[in-house]
């Protein structure tokens, strides 16, 4: 029963990161395409809109990694993830980023953006929102 709740939280955290709808149309459809209002938590500012928070995260990532400041560079980096091929669903052309994200955390392939420790894949997905 508890695992079920955890799956639910996983889905919401992906929503929270809000990257999915941004990716639609970029050739990397995501598992979910919804964004929750919780992004405001990133800055502790209830007035901040989800998209504003997402853009700020993406901007913070690109400030630290200027070489990735293009769709091409970010998509290449995401597709270059060791788990990308395994996460790609051939039938639906969807990518299950959860595995990539978990693998990032497992090997501490993380970045700290505005203090939040995120997987590098998450950060790149956020960055795609603004390039």
């Amino acid at each position, binding site marked *: 029963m*508890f695992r079920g709740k*955890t799956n639910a*939280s996983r889905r919401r*955290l992906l929503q929270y990161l809000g990257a999915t709808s941004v990716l639609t149309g970029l050739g990397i459809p995501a598992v979910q395409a919804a964004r929750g209002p919780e992004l405001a938590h990133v800055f502790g500012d209830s007035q901040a809109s989800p998209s504003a928070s997402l853009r700020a995260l993406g901007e913070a990532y690109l400030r630290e990694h200027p070489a990735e400041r293009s769709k091409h560079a970010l998509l290449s980096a995401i597709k270059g993830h060791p788990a990308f091929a395994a996460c790609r669903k051939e039938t639906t052309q969807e990518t299950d980023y959860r595995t990539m*994200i978990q693998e990032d955390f*497992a090997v501490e392939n*993380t970045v*700290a953006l505005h203090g*939040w420790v995120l997987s590098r894949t998450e950060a790149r997905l956020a960055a795609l929102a603004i390039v």
Partner: protein
Amino acid sequence: MFIDARATDQKKIESDICIVGAGAAGITLALALSGKNLRIILLESGGFEPEPDTQALYTGANTGVPYYPLESTRLRYFGGTTGHWGGACWPLQAHEFERRDWVPHSGWPITREDLNPYYVKAQETCEVGPFNYDAEHWSEASDQPELPLGDSRLLTSIYQSSAPPTRFGSRYREDIDQAGDIRALLHANVTQIHRDPLSQTVQHVTTRTLEGKTLTVNSRLFVIATGGMENPRLLLLNDIGNQHDQVGRYFMEHIGIPKATLLLAKDVNTLFYKRTSINGTDIRAGLSLRPEVIKKEQILNTWIGFQLKATPQSRLAHSVDTLKSSIMNGDIPDDFVHHLKTVLRSMRQIYRDRDPAESDDDELGGTGELVEIPVGQQSEQSPNPLSRVTLGDQLDALGQRKIVFDWRLTELDYYSIRRTQEITAAEIGKSDLGRMKIPNPKEPEVWQHPQRISELAQPQGAFHHMGTTRMSTDPQHGVVDSDCKVHGTKNLYMAGSSVFPTCGYQNPTLTIVAMAHRLAEHLAAQFPEQEPT
């Protein structure tokens, strides 16, 4: 019995064991030694209530990492600093007694196994539950799951709380009073320890009241149990035990730095991580790194706690337990009205929550589907000879030199906290429970500059003063031996957290009390001719 040193006409007292200081260690020692046909003297600087003039004897200067005023971090009256103790009890872990290659000056000359029987006694003295700190056991007993961390570098760690915290002064005052073999002198400040250098024996101590009345206590054995700052101060003032310049060094505190934040899905079950009462035992769970991870990472130990709001059920259980134990002891707690109100309010809230339309959705402190939880941490400090207590030029009201306190942290201290936060954040992310925000990274160099640490890192202590008369079998590396006897003396012992060579992250009171029970057994064995009464 109690004697007020201000009112007695006695000039000299004879005893078998003289204990200086009536805090957790001193009171435990006196009571553990009672009934063994020994004459026990317990010397206390204060009275039954805090007194400003006595408390002012604790003032001193801070020259290191910014710290609280010294007189605010400890209490100088009967019961000592247990008067503002929070009640947290947990034993040091077995690996924390061992020498760790990456922690300079680490390693105890005794093991956790040596202390286990005394921890069992300490649990009773501190009025907590059974000596069981297995998180899985308490999770099952509470019917609340541990966080599903999977194959993680983290594990759930719990502590027990003395609830309400045992105030040794009020809790054991009658026991001391009724013990026919204990004489407790109040307002008796030890100003001199007279040691014969030839025989290396302390012969007597001189006490003085703030009004100037003096008294001499002769004894066969002496124990100094005045806390982690006053213990070294007394030795330094009397030039005892410092032949290798070890007294006052290695001061350790438990370090907290600005809080991290955890973002969890609201349906992640965190109930076990709230402070909760389970079968009458007050438990709080948090996270720590597995010992093998600490070893691999070569860092110090840290405990991570979630600052969750109490549920109405846990508030109710806590207040009911408090009121019940008070009534059984025939006392009315100071906060009686508070607990009564809590019971009524919690019951009303629990009843109301049965109706979803009236439920309080803010219980976890969040909104929407995610909840933001402040994360606190308590970290071990490494033993550092430059972190120390010395004597200054200022004099107190008794003409004694005041303390100069120089708390210093090392790069290992900073790195360990930072690294633990990073690992915790990664493991929380890996297990899909949430994400973690950690304080801004700071360069380790700032920890070497006290004025900048205050500004940038803001480390906080926990009023835990440890390590200043550390235990070592080698007099060149410590002040007391494995029996807590001061090197270079034959009859002077130290009690309290000043003897800890390393401090773990665990609040020290339970270990202080366990060590006091162990010392009592050792001291009693020095009087084989005495038959128990």
